[in-house]
């Protein structure tokens, strides 16, 4: 895609901004420059996050001496693996729905005239303020057997018995997409707003059709934001517990619900630490791989 952008850039005009080979510092390179910017956050996180989390994850090899027993138990128990895989699957589906739904929305808003753009933006941002709890209960009112949707469809004679759109995986995905779509759209919109209109006008003046302008100029510039947004949505879905707990009707057990069980009810902190470690390793590897791919592409 980025190679395509380069070619497109060569055809239409200048290279898109920001594609300096390594994005390096403006000053002549010295050893370890820029670290000072990272240091404050690193210190705070080191004390208030890294240390506690490592101590907690250490439970996975504890009890009381070093043992791989918990990992063996995790991988040997099909229930835990199933829950793990179900969670990943739901996260993939949610991401796969958010991207094709959110990209057109962001694109459409970006090209609206200023007044209407503000209204549309408001409609994206305002639902954010409806807490996830309230939103989830709103979906119950809407999608339940005695909910608005089913009542209307029954009255119109479209269906004979209520549709099962709640208290199952479908309900969870509807709720999750509804919560996470703004997380995808807002950053994407911010990135689209940065794209210079003059680039697009230049392409048009050179005879490119609207579709060509989009696919050759506009879209490649938004790819970093799209992938960042998709990764964000994916990772966030993995950690959801409120939505599956309430909208899943007890049928949809995701990792976070399982961990809540293991920590608050069973309790089996060792196994909880094991599952968390596996999750952390898997997701961080995927994340690093995606970053490595992106750096290679640039």
């Amino acid at each position, binding site marked *: 895609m980025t190679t395509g952008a380069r070619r497109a850039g060569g055809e239409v005009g200048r290279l898109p901004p920001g594609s300096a080979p390594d994005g390096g510092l403006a000053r002549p390179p010295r050893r370890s420059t820029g670290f000072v910017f990272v240091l404050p956050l690193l210190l705070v996180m080191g004390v208030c996050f890294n240390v506690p989390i490592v101590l907690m994850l250490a439970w996975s090899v504890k009890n009381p001496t070093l043992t791989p027993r918990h990992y063996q138990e995790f991988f040997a128990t*099909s*229930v835990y693996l199933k829950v793990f895989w*179900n969670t990943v699957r739901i996260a993939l589906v949610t991401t796969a729905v958010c991207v094709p739904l959110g990209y057109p929305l962001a694109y459409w808003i970006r090209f609206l005239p200023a007044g209407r753009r503000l209204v549309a933006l408001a409609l994206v941002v305002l639902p954010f303020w409806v807490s996830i709890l309230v939103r989830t209960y709103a979906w119950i009112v809407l999608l339940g057997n*005695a909910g608005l949707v089913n009542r209307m469809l029954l009255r119109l004679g479209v269906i004979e018995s209520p549709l099962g759109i709640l*208290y199952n995986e479908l309900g969870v995905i509807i709720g999750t997409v509804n919560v996470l779509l703004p997380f995808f759209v807002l950053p994407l919109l911010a990135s689209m707003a940065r794209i210079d209109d003059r680039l697009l006008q230049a392409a048009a003046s050179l005879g490119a059709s609207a579709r060509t302008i989009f696919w050759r100029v506009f879209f490649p510039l938004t790819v970093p934001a799209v992938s960042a947004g998709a990764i964000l949505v994916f990772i966030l879905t993995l950690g959801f517990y409120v939505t599956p707990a309430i909208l899943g009707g*007890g049928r949809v057990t995701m990792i976070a619900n399982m961990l809540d069980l293991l*920590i608050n009810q069973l*309790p089996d902190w060792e196994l909880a630490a094991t599952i968390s470690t596996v999750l952390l390793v898997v997701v961080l590897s995927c994340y690093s791989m995606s970053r490595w791919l992106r750096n290679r592409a640039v």
Partner: protein
Amino acid sequence: MRFSRRAVGMTCTLVAAAIVVAVGIGSAQEMAKRFVFGSPGGVSTEANQEIFWKPFTARTGIEIIAEVPSSFGKLRAMVQSGKVTASLWDLGTLQLEQAKALDLIEPIDWDQISPGPMFPEMRQQYGFGQTYFSTVMAWRADVKAPQSWQDFWNVKDFPGKRSLSNFPAYTLPIAALADGVPPDKLYPLDLDRAFRSLDRIKPSVSVWWTTGAQPGQLLVDNEVQYANAWNGRVATLWEQGVRHNFNQGLLDIAWWVVPKGAPPAEKRAAMLFLHEWSDPAKQAEYAKRVYYTGSSPSLAALLPKDKLHMFPTTPENKAKQILANGRWWFENADLVEKRWQAWKLGQ
């Protein structure tokens, strides 16, 4: 007389020692002016605060601070961290056993509480029984009323959607009872039989409820027509068309425990407070509000006569129910949970 330096030195040391001992004994008997109470929050905690806490504070000047919510994980984290700030904590029967096994709690100081008469099962070494609560069958007023779990399982004669608890402890026993297990032979639970029984009702179960408020809400909204629920939550929905009875109900007890390492002075204050809870008059007030009955045997006489059927431990209702077996659940918790999840994932 002239005192030798040695004599003076020894006297001073003795006096100092005496002062230290006196202060030590004094502070050991000292009672704090406040203590922290881990509570679940919501209606029952509010009733607790109004009926028990406020008069206690007015009388003794000891302030009670509620730490909400009071999950088991939080208790464990607190004791694990070594900085225990709470003197009382709310736990269920299974969690009480787990807390004992993990060495998270201290024995109750019954001598200090010197309570009024209590049902014997409410007095445990490590737990103070606060109230009884029951898992009962509930239904909408406009459908046929079940009289037993076998009726509940009978979807032909009692048509409608069901909601069952997502906690195996409140659902597996009734599945066994529905299959015909006699109440006195319920424990040890025959898991195979219980899960087979659940297989039969599975297609009719719309929702596996995870919060106490859910089953009542589902019944009110006509989302389901039958549910198992905690009696207090559905008792308050009588006017909204929800009915329940205590036939074959699962009687259980909610406990208060003392976290291990609680500050001794505050623990003493907490024990003093617990004495309040053995007062049947106050228990009656509490039960009238939340329908959970306390430990006093003379409580039943003080309950409103027209609503006697709504309380778990009136003699008539108590006889119909089965007391929970915390020990069995503790020993089998892990196994049951894995099997429960596997069973649900199979659906």
